[in-house]
């Protein structure tokens, strides 16, 4: 029998540190897109509470029941992360496996919002994006999901674009660090 090995090509590119920020990868584990059927959002949320102890998030919201988290990711859509989704949820929602589809990065450090301000057209400072909030937007020319976690800003992007994503964020980190030297 063939043995397939898991590979994440961006592992070789990370971590990156520049100035006051650090960029690293993290493993989001199983990810399931939850998309409630028509009129079933509340029912889905209840079923999720029963099965996982967290509800379906409102727009921009993250619900959590460690190790599980559920990130709002779009109109009628959220990603359950940190563990598999209860198959029973499929009575209320379309469930589609998204594992492996996304590269997950974390940007840590006080100047993380300044770094992403080079790439992201949304205010990511803590006052605008506090912990427990998430949003969909652009990072450079790529669509991303950005969430504020206790450790820093988490960025999900399409797996195939991992190289560009790392490169562009690392570049921004270096520019911000370069400015800091100017005083």
């Amino acid at each position, binding site marked *: 029998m063939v043995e397939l090995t898991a590979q994440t090509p961006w592992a070789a590119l990370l971590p990156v540190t520049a100035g006051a920020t650090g960029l690293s990868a993290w493993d989001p584990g199983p990810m399931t897109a939850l998309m409630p*059927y028509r009129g079933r959002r509340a029912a889905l949320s209840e079923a999720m509470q029963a099965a996982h102890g967290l509800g379906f998030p409102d*727009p*921009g919201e993250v619900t959590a029941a460690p190790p599980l988290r559920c990130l709002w990711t*779009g109109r*009628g859509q959220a990603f359950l992360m940190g563990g598999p989704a209860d198959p029973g949820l499929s009575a209320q929602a379309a469930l589609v496996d998204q594992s492996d589809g996304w590269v997950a990065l974390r940007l840590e450090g006080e100047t993380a919002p300044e770094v992403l301000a080079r790439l992201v057209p949304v205010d990511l400072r803590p006052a605008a994006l506090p912990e427990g909030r998430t949003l*969909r937007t652009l990072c450079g020319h790529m669509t991303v999901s950005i969430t504020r976690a206790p450790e820093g800003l988490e960025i999900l992007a399409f797996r195939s674009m991992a190289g560009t994503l790392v490169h562009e964020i690392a570049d921004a980190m270096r520019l911000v660090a370069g400015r800091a030297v100017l005083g």
Partner: protein
Amino acid sequence: MRLSCPLCGERDRREFTYQGAAAMVDRPAPGATTEQWSDWLHLRDNPAGRTRDLWYHEAGCGAWLVVERDTVTHEIFGTALVGGDHAD
């Protein structure tokens, strides 16, 4: 230019894809004549002033929006989800 997405809040225009007059929502019923179809697809009021048009929050939540705005001043009066609140 900034648009308010009902789900995501105020966002830069670069997150949105434009799709023209909101009249496109009112697709002719089955059985309409070719002329009716052609008029629907091609002819436009194209107002210099208040209009309703379609925007897709492509780099955001994936919602299609009807935006009411002014084509001369670019003032925006309001945005709403196409198809209503069927699943947000």
